[in-house]
């Protein structure tokens, strides 16, 4: 990571690295994507045929689930372009500084492949409220952020195309995102869409920085592969969610006769993305109880 990249990362909460992938790399990844998309469309709708539920609109796969590493599982050579991204040397040199040594892939890769007319998503994430597991910290010498997403561009994202957008500097915001910014109907001029070419890589503070997906407006299909990392001791939305129940994370015999409250602290680490984690509270009389009845 160069001094300029470090400065810009701290300043804005994102970074664009130009032409990390060669045209041949981009073509190989796009070929693999085409193969994957075709296989999804040929699947039946029987339960279990579509693990991770790719989103399909008008017969086009427009987004894959971020919790299932479809692209890493493909047969060779199609898995190679994606396996090459997850530990790419240039990206690693950034991540080891951004997330610290021992950083790890939390979830992904997923592909966003919107076509013209596919609606965008809400802006989300911010420096306020601060979320320690994905938040940004800087002591003037070193810096750290719990959630980093690396977005490999397999198609151009020209000015006005939509797609990835962010609020630069929002990772340090002391105020929550105003309502109008969320869906961009009154974005106050704060929302920015970086301009990218196929082969570029966008790295952003996922969770700390306000970001989202604008409706895709270009005639060509958006192609972005998102790979999501975190620090060694953090968990976002990866497989930990599937294996986090106390019986899996520890041992069935160990937890079998525990109370609901005791089981709550035996849960494995993952973010409470859908509000599924039972939080403990302590009442004034000292009683410990699971809030909102979310026992596991």
């Amino acid at each position, binding site marked *: 990571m160069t001094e300029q990249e470090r400065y810009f990362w701290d300043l804005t909460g994102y970074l664009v690295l130009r032409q990390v992938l060669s045209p041949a790399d981009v073509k190989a990844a796009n070929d693999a994507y085409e193969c994957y998309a075709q296989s999804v469309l040929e699947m039946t709708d029987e339960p279990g045929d579509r693990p991770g539920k790719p989103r399909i609109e008008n017969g086009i796969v427009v987004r894959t689930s971020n919790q299932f590493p479809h692209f890493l599982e493909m047969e060779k050579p199609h898995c190679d372009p994606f396996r090459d991204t997850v530990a790419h040397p240039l990206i690693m040199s950034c991540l080891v500084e951004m997330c610290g040594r021992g950083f790890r892939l939390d979830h992904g890769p997923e592909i966003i492949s919107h076509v013209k007319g596919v609606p965008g998503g809400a802006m989300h994430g911010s420096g306020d409220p601060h979320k320690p597991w994905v938040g940004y910290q800087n002591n003037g010498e070193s810096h750290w952020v719990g959630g980093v997403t690396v977005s490999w561009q397999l198609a151009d994202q020209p000015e006005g195309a939509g797609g990835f957008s962010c609020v630069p*500097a929002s990772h340090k915001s002391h105020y929550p995102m105003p309502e109008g910014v969320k869906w961009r109907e009154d974005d106050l001029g704060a929302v920015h869409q970086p301009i990218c070419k196929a082969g570029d890589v966008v790295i952003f503070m996922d969770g700390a920085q306000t970001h989202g997906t604008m409706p895709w407006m270009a005639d060509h299909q958006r192609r972005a592969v998102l790979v999501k990392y975190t620090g060694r001791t953090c968990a976002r939305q990866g497989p930990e969610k599937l294996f986090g129940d106390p019986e899996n994370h520890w041992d069935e015999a160990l937890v079998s006769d525990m109370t609901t409250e005791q089981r709550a602290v035996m849960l494995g680490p993952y973010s409470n993305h859908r509000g599924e984690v039972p939080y403990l509270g302590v009442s004034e009389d000292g009683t410990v109880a699971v809030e909102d009845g979310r026992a596991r």
Partner: protein
Amino acid sequence: MTEKQRYLLDLWGYLHVRNAFSGEELADAQKAAERYVNSKPEELPEGFGIEGKRHLNGFAFDKSLERLATHPSIWPIIKEITKGRPRLTSGTLQINNPDELKDVLRLHCAKDDYGWDAIRWDVRDGRIFCNHVVAFPYLTDVNPGDGGLLVVPGSHKSNFERPPEAFNGGIVEDLDHLPDGVVNITPKAGDVVIMSEGVTHGALPWTPKDRMRMYMVLRYHPQYAGSDMPEEIRERLSPETLELVSGAAHKTVKEIVKRDVITLS
């Protein structure tokens, strides 16, 4: 300060207040500024003078300019950002002439000029505090393509020193080649830009051949910082502005701070 203003000011380190003043207020201020600009140096009253683009103590030249220092559009913001302890430490009238050399103002900020400890930006109890704020009331229009103020949004909170080679070495000469992260602000006459001196900023060359850029540079510090203005300037001021430019102890609450709207006596 509205919630949206507070969000943007904290996010970017500056705020563009549109249509802050207009009509007679604007026309009177424009006429007074033109009078100052067109004066021969030897005709100027004591305490005034011209140093290149800077027309010293311009805010005290006429009541229409003095009023801008406590204008209702910025007064609540100035009060909040100085934690209710405001002091106006300088008020210059600044111009860019059509016939001037087309030089750029290199990107800079208080941290570059005086060190990282020169500027503070904090948020406590939901309120922003900064110890060096500048308000730029604009007296003429700046249109896209004209040139003028450049800012690096968010740089007031930058944790790292700006590398010397960043943003083209700090020299930005034309709008078509703005480096990523740099923004050109184009206020209209009657707009006010309020900015932390910690924001990295500079200026594009002024390009119009038939118009000047004319704006005030009003600097505010906490009342326990700064130094006294020349006596000949202080003598011209209304009591309210005189209190604003005067230093005071940390815990003193100035009378003007108790008011939401200041009317000059």
